[in-house]
């Protein structure tokens, strides 16, 4: 391995080997310098020791790299006698006592939970690694000037320092998501205490856990609220993660209220979080959504959010990733205008193959909607207040037309379900929707497939990328967050990765576009959501993506409006720390007024992709003074 040194660095040629490759001077250091061995995991630490013993003439940075250190700057690798480590163990007290007796070891103290902090010498590394109660050893890495790429982007960090006093202390952040890896240091404070006030597991009989129960559960095998997916761990650490390696969440001083959701009772989850918060200010993050509603703020859960939120009670929701999913059709029709659009159903590898979509139009208009099967059968949606069910051996089709008391819109429901043993391409492809306008006062009709991945509309003028903000982000009470590209490069177990398709600063190509069906301005603002490096849940689905994850560092880099929303959630927590009675309306107005405009957003006060602009946290907090 060769290492390039800056030409300006004054150094004797003694002890250096110089070679020329293609006109570029490559310098390899062979004189002994100090190296900090970055202890990534057991295997790599062992490798460091072996490398250090057997290849004394190898450049120290090479040893560290062979050991699995992925730092980009060879000059930053120094040798020291001892390395600060964080040790995860089943028996913290017992291990701490043993470590204290070891030579070349100092500063041993249990941090709480399953963690022990220590400074250990290379001579005893293997002793520690082979201790039967040690689960993981990780070096406490030196912080870079920038803790993450996200915090400087929103103005929170400048030259490595937080620009404000607020860190979320005294504020509760609620996260409704796939689960949480509470063994991750991102969820512990500097003393090693879990920063979780309570956890509700909707997937396990609505089990509720106190901090003490969580500590017990996570020091053993129960692991309540565990995150098999990895999404929730990542989201929670973006909003509120403690400083971990080079990474820190937006509000690392906040306490957490966590709900592992069943994806249905999200309304109950939000209600539980606010109940648990009591009199403390609280912001809830929901990085999930659907497209089954009217997209006009009248969905039941959206109206429930209005009832639940208020002073010190704020809800932040991802705008959605449906811009290019071809799941939305919409247009204004003239009387007697007819449009037919083809759609295909996607075969589901896991779970039943099905597709539901709803069309919505104003009660004063009238549309005839027909479904044409791949075999040419024409089936008309019945009159208002009725439903028809059709069946064959292979599939069912429900067509319904109804109105809800809370909406001025008429809903047309089309629902297809297939029996897996009969699913063929012939059956799934080539469906058509034919829409005829009979009366046009407003004359607009919009339709959405219930979610992405179930089906897709074929290219057609009716297929729109706008009005793809998901429910419940179309609700009036929430703050809806779009995503933009803040970072195109990330580290992974497969080495450095780069997405050359994206443009820094530009709206993420997947980020759903506004406005709402009734023309209101959603999303409210955009935040960094592509690519965001944050906590990785152990053994999760995300951990199986070596081009995204750094398993030993417990980090993963992913994208989505799911990742943008918790950036804003953390920002709102800081705002709530400054003003605990902040209302959702005032928070939204401040975020909108302070939002940053640049060459990508343009000067317009609101755009379909960025909302009112990009999150500008310091300016937002300044408006709260």
């Amino acid at each position, binding site marked *: 391995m060769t290492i390039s040194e800056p030409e300006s660095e004054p150094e004797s040629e003694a002890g250096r080997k110089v070679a020329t490759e293609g006109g570029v001077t490559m310098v390899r250091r062979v004189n002994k310098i100090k190296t900090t061995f970055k202890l990534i995991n057991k295997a790599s630490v062992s490798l460091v020791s072996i490398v250090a013993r057997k290849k004394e003439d190898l450049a120290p940075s090479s040893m560290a790299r062979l050991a699995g250190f992925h730092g980009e700057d060879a000059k930053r690798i120094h040798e020291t006698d001892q390395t600060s480590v964080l040790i995860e163990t089943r028996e913290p007290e017992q291990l701490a006592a043993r470590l204290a007796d070891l030579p070349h070891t100092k500063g041993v103290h249990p941090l709480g939970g399953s963690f022990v902090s220590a400074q250990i010498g290379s001579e005893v590394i293997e002793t520690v690694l082979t201790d039967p109660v040690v689960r993981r050893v990780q070096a406490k890495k030196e912080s870079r000037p920038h803790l993450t790429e996200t915090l400087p982007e929103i103005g929170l960090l400048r030259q490595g320092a937080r620009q404000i006093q607020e860190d979320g202390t005294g504020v509760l952040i609620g996260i409704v998501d796939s689960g949480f890896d509470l063994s991750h240091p991102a969820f512990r404070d500097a003393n090693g205490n879990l920063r979780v006030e309570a956890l509700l597991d909707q997937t396990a009989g609505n089990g509720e856990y106190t901090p003490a129960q969580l500590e017990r559960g996570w020091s053993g095998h129960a692991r309540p609220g565990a995150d098999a997916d990895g999404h929730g761990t990542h989201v929670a650490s973006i909003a509120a993660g403690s400083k971990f390696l080079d990474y820190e969440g937006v509000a690392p001083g906040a306490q957490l209220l966590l709900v592992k959701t069943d994806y249905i009772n999200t309304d109950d989850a939000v209600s539980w979080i606010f109940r648990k918060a009591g009199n403390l200010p609280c912001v809830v993050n929901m990085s999930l959504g659907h497209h089954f509603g009217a997209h006009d703020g009248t969905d039941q859960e959206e109206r429930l959010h209005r009832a639940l939120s208020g002073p010190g009670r704020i809800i932040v929701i991802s705008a959605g990733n449906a811009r290019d999913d071809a799941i939305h059709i919409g247009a204004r029709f003239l009387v007697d205008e007819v449009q037919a659009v083809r759609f295909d159903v996607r075969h589901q590898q896991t779970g039943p193959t099905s597709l539901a979509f709803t069309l919505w139009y104003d009660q004063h208009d009238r549309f005839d909607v027909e479904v044409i*099967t791949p075999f040419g059968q024409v089936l008309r949606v019945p009159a208002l207040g009725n439903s028809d069910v059709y069946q064959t051996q292979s599939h069912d089709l429900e067509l*319904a037309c109804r109105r809800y008391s809370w909406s001025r819109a008429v809903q047309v429901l089309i629902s297809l379900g297939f029996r897996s043993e009969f699913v063929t391409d012939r059956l799934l492809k080539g469906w058509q929707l034919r829409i005829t306008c009979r009366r046009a006062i407003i004359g607009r009709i919009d339709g959405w497939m219930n979610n992405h991945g179930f089906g897709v509309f074929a290219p057609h003028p009716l297929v729109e990328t706008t009005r793809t903000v998901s429910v419940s982000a179309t609700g009036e009470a929430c703050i809806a967050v779009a995503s933009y590209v803040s970072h195109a490069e990330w580290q992974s177990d497969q080495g450095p990765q780069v997405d050359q398709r994206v443009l820094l600063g530009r709206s*993420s190509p997947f980020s759903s576009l506004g406005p709402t069906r009734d023309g209101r301005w959603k999303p409210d603002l955009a935040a960094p959501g592509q690519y965001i490096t944050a906590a990785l849940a152990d053994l999760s689905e995300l951990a199986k993506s070596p081009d995204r994850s750094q398993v030993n560092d417990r980090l993963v880099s*992913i994208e989505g409006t799911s990742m943008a929303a918790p950036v804003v959630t953390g920002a709102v927590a800081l705002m709530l720390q400054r003003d605990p009675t902040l209302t959702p309306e005032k928070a939204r107005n401040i975020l909108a007024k302070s939002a940053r405009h640049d060459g990508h957003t343009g000067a317009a006060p609101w755009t379909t992709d960025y909302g009112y602009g990009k999150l500008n946290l310091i300016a937002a907090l300044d408006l709260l003074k």
Partner: protein
Amino acid sequence: MWLKKRSAKVNTEHDRGAVAVLVEALPGHSDEEVVNRLRMIGAHRAEVLAPGFVLAAIERGRIEELEDIAQVGIKPEKRLLGAAY
């Protein structure tokens, strides 16, 4: 592959099984009345989440037994919004 029609009213029992619902009392009816009715028709759970909103899980075929005093919305399933999903 020709589909055969089987007429049914909206919210009848063509799809059996418990569904999670959010129930809103119609004008002139109270949350308490809705909760009582839900319990009477065997709801697995009936709880006021916020004034005007009652959470419940009931057999889909029994939804129409509520419709004289309340409007019932079946909760849709949500999806995570990371782009990889």
